[in-house]
Each structure stands twice: as structure tokens, then as C-alpha cells.
């Protein structure tokens, strides 16, 4: 019990391995037995550019053309990935969660509860569930608000939500509110959140 090899191999490696098996390998195996758990690459996610992405290209044609060219699956994929990078880099996920639970009236406030299938894709690797909600959950954010709302909100959150404590992010837009590359990317990414849900078979969804 008090010997070197016991401590290294039984306590050190052994106990770690048991936990690794039970709380990582087991859930991983269970999850992959679900229906519809095929991994979606970024290209697959971006096959059909969103309506909001098209609207951005129409509203800010010059800046859009400069940073993303034309609306295409490729430019949409580029914007999504960049948006996620900014979202992670600016630590947005520390104040905004991305999963809806089946308790506490969350389905009323945010929308359908999260299922494992909708996180099985390139933009959830690693996942961005978060553990704190200073601001609202964003798992169902896509399409809830207009691009204009998001742009106004990023430039000055208090202009649309008077008691917001979110910091302004004016450096993603010029003085007229025209987004730069990061601004387009962030709005595109937010408008994408939750849209994967539509592709999941109804029978597999959790009902509250």
C-alpha cells in the first residue's frame, strides 16, 4: 500500500484508467450508438449558405466582396470557421452557454432542448457548451434576430438591451456600422447556431 510501484501503477495509472473507461469511453460508445451521429465536416455544414449570409452580402456589397467575394459554400464555410475562431478567441463562450436543458422551463425560453446529434460536427470540435450564462444561451440563436440587430448590439449592446453588461465590440465594424471580415464572420456564425437541429430526425429529439 505504501510502496512506490503500488502508488504509480495502481493509484496513478490504474485509478485514472478506470475513470477514463467509465466517464469517457462508455459515454463515447453510447453516444455513437445513437441514430444520426455521423460527423459533419465544415464543407457539409456549409453546403447551403444561410439566408442571413446572403442578406449580409446584399446589404454591404463592397465590404463583403472585399473580404468574402461572392456567396458560395466556400465563402460561407470560411465565414463560419472564422466566426467560431473569434467567438473562441474573445472568450464569448465563458458568458454564453450553448446547450438547452430539459429542466427549468428552458425549452420555453430558448427553444428545443439540445440533443447529442446536433453537436456532432466540425464547428463543435471542441464543443462550446460553456458553464455560465451571464448573457443568454445561444444554442438556438440562429434566425431569432436580424443581422441589423446583431450589428447594433455588437457596436453598443446597451443601445438594444438597456441593462446589458456585455462589452461593446466596435472594432469589428467601421464607423458607419459596415462589418469587416471578423464582423461578417461573427454575425454569420451566430445566425448559424441551432440551425443543424432542423436536420435531425424528429423521433430522435428529446421532448420536454
Amino acid at each position, binding site marked *: *500500500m*505504501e*510502496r512506490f510501484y503500488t*502508488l*504509480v501503477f495502481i*493509484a*496513478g*495509472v490504474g*485509478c*485514472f484508467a*478506470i*475513470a*477514463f473507461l*467509465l*466517464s*469517457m469511453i*462508455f*459515454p*463515447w460508445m*453510447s*453516444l*455513437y450508438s445513437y441514430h444520426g451521429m455521423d460527423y459533419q465536416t465544415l464543407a457539409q455544414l456549409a453546403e447551403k449558405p444561410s439566408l442571413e449570409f446572403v442578406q449580409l452580402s446584399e446589404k454591404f456589397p463592397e465590404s463583403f466582396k472585399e473580404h468574402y467575394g461572392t456567396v458560395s459554400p466556400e465563402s460561407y464555410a470560411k465565414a463560419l470557421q472564422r466566426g*467560431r*475562431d*473569434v467567438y*473562441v*478567441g*474573445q*472568450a*464569448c463562450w*465563458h*458568458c454564453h452557454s450553448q*446547450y438547452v*436543458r430539459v*429542466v*427549468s*422551463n428552458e425549452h420555453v*425560453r430558448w427553444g428545443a432542448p*439540445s440533443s*447529442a446529434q446536433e453537436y*456532432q*460536427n*466540425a464547428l463543435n*470540435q*471542441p*464543443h462550446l457548451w460553456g*458553464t*455560465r*450564462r*451571464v*448573457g*443568454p444561451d445561444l444554442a438556438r440563436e440562429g434566425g431569432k434576430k436580424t443581422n441589423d440587430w446583431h450589428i447594433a448590439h455588437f457596436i453598443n449592446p446597451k443601445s438594444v*438591451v438597456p*441593462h446589458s*453588461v456585455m*462589452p*461593446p*465590440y*466596435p*472594432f469589428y465594424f467601421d464607423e458607419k456600422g459596415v462589418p469587416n471580415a471578423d464582423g461578417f464572420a461573427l454575425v454569420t456564425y451566430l445566425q448559424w447556431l441551432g440551425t443543424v437541429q432542423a436536420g435531425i430526425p424528429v423521433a430522435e429529439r428529446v421532448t420536454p
Partner: protein
Amino acid sequence: MSASTTLAAHGDPLVNYRLIKAHIFAGAVALSISMIAGFLYSLQFVGYFPLGHDNWMLTPGHMRLLHTNMAAYGWLVNGFTAMLYYVVPRLTGYKVLSDKLGGLIFAAWQLILALSIVGYLTDKAQAIEWGETPTGFRPGTFEMNFVPVDLLVVVGAVLVIVQFMVPIYKARDQKFYVTLWYFTAGLVWLALTYLMGNIMPEWMLPGAAGAATTGLFIHDLVGLYVTPMGWGMMYFFVPLILRRPIWSHSLSVIGFWALAFFYPLGGVHHFLISPIPDYVEFGAITTTIAIEVVVTTVVVNFFMTLRGRWSALRTSMAIRWFYVGAVFYFITCLQCAFQVTWLFQRVIHFTDWVVGHAHLIMFGVFTFWLFGVIEWLWPRVCKREWYSQTLRGWHFWLWSVGVMIMFFDLMIAGLVHGFMQRDLNDWSDILRMSEPFWWVRAFSGVMILVGLFCALYNMFMTAKAGAAYQEEKHYIPANAD
């Protein structure tokens, strides 16, 4: 007991005090950065973020990254490494592998911290809680976009393990003292935990399976590195200063093995009521409650060791930090046994309750214990007595009261937020109700900051102008109480 005989047989030539001093200094710098960043972040919540919002690098989000990561990888790792340089040679009777390697580890670790800071400020953080050290690659790919700091951390951790495992291995024929059980296993766990948490969710496991892994990582980092180091040093310093053995050997054995077995199983409890399968969540909940039993045995063991010598809390600053920390530890773990249930999770998850919990364990427990160790080590390292007794007192009281205020304030704020969220109140109303609590939190942050500056000034002046060092002053006299 083999520990005390080894201690008597070998004196200080085994210990490299320069490395201890360097690591304590680096840890203190990191703790200052962490506290200042945390305070700036708290000001954002009350609407007075002083750095403005026009700079994409000095944003509140980045302040949070600095706050948590400097506390974990800057302060705790440096502090524990300093402590290991003192404890491991004394318990094993062998020097650490190499002083030159020690210098290299020190330099490498500070380089890692500096690079991480640059990474956090330039949007390169990794999306893994408590593991935000930049990977240097675009998520899930091998396209480089920054220095691969994670890789350096792995190299640094391996060097640390080699440095301390060599003397432990040389002493393998001895029966180990409790402290060495924790350190031996803890060093093995450190390597496994870091590799698992930083590689698997990033490159191998998207979504929910990755979430189970990051939950395990957050949990193991605290439970399998920080906790073993913390309890290991408590088992070493408390009997040393009190000059009496630990009360019960059996309880020590139960405490260690139950920690080793139960602690890592609770990882998934960071994402409860989530798409992770329910049976895994129930397993995590059950073992987390079991940990509370373990913690009770260890805390009882320590308080029974102190019995009849309560005046030590008055006369020894180190003992005071240790035991107040132990009380906080018990509170945190008791809270944990409740908050891990689905009943509590419905309300308190996603709220400030969890933030208060994290602050108590990080700054109330392990930081208190490290302050206790520094109370003991710093005069020894500088060969001088503490410069000011008053400042030592202020440091202790400002931290104790500040951390308590912060803990209870955030706990209540969490309940308010949680119930308002459940009752479908408007999100703006939740923010308005939280604001007074955030003011109190910022105020308790000021107390903690001032306390820290008292300590830093006192450490500086001790090194410069303290009275001559007297060994005996630091032990509890045999006839106390």
C-alpha cells in the same frame, strides 16, 4: 516513522533554496496578474471597465482568461513546484535529479506563461475550460497559427515529473510517508490528465463525447493534481510545525485511496442534464457524494491532530492558514455534495453559485495552504524573520474576510439568478437583480487585492530588511496549551 528519521538524518544541503525562491517569486507575480485581471473583469459587470472597449486585445473576456489561467498555471504550479523542491528531498533523503534541470524547468515554465499571455490577448486561446493554453493550431487541424504552447506544457510537465520522480524512485525500498503517496500518484496523474484533456476533445472527439472528456479534464486537474499536491503538503507541514504525528494512520490510508478511486469518476458532473448519457451523469453524481465522505475523514484526521494545541492557531501563521483553509475545504466539498444533485443543478447551473464555489476552492483553500507554506518557507529562503507582524495579520484577515464575502455573495447571487431564470423573468431583470451582488463581489476583490499587496510588500521587505532567522520560532513549543 520513516519520515522523521529521514528528516533528522539529512539537513538542508539536500534542498536548493535558490530554485524555491525563484518559483515563489514567479508564483507571486502570476498571482498578482491573476488578481488584477480578475478585478478588472469584475468591474465590467458593474459598468466601469477601466481599459475601455476600443482595443480588441484588452477586452474583459481576455481578462477572464488571464485571471483563471494565471491562477492555475502561474500561481499554483509555481507554488507547488517551490514546495516540492523543499519537501521531496527531505522525505526521500535524495536530492532532486539536477539543479541545472531545475533552472531549465523554471525558465521554460515562465516562458510558457509569457507565451500563454500573448496567446490569450491575441485570440489564440483553446476552447477548453481551464486548459485555454494555446494549442498553436487551428481547432481540430494541424494548420499552425501560434507557438504550440500546449506542447511546451507537456514537455515542461514531463521535466517536472522526471525531476521529482527520480528521488522518489531512488527511495522506492522505503515505506513511503503519506505525503509521498499523494505526490507520486499526483505526478503520474498530472501527465495523463493534461494529455487527455488537451488532445482528445480538440482532435478526436467533437460534441457531447468531447464534453464528457473536458468535464473529466477540469475535474481531474483540480482533483488529481491540485488536491494531491495540497493534501500532500498539509500532511508534511502540519505534523512538522506542531511536532506531533498525524492522529490516525488508518484515516490517512482511507483518505488517499478513496480519493484515488472516487475522485476521477466524478468528471462528468460539470455538464449535468446535458446530452451526455444519463447513466454516466448518475455515476458521476454518486461518486461525487462519496467524495464528501472521504473529505470528512481527512478533515477529521487533521483536526484531531490539532486537538489540545489550539493555541497554535494564534501563535503560528502557517498553522492558521492551513486550518482556515481546511475549514473552507470542508465547506466547499459539503456544498459540492448538494450542488451535484439534479435538484440543485436545475437552479444553480449556469449561475454565479458555481463561480463562488470555484473561488472558494481556488483562492480560499489551495491558495491559503500555499500561503501557509510560504509563511514557513520564505523566512528560511531569505534567512530572515518576517519584516512586519502587522502586515501578516492584515494579509490573513483581508483574505479570509474577502474570500468569505465573495463566496456567500456569489452563492446568493446564483440562487437569485437561478430562480429568476427558471421563473422565466426577463433577462434584463435578472441582470438588474444581479448588479448589487456584483458590486459586493468587486468590493471583496478590493479586499483580496489589498491583502495581496500587504503580503508582497512584506515579502519584499523581509528579503531586504528582516531580522536574523531563528529556527525555533517557527515550531509550536512542546509545552503549548
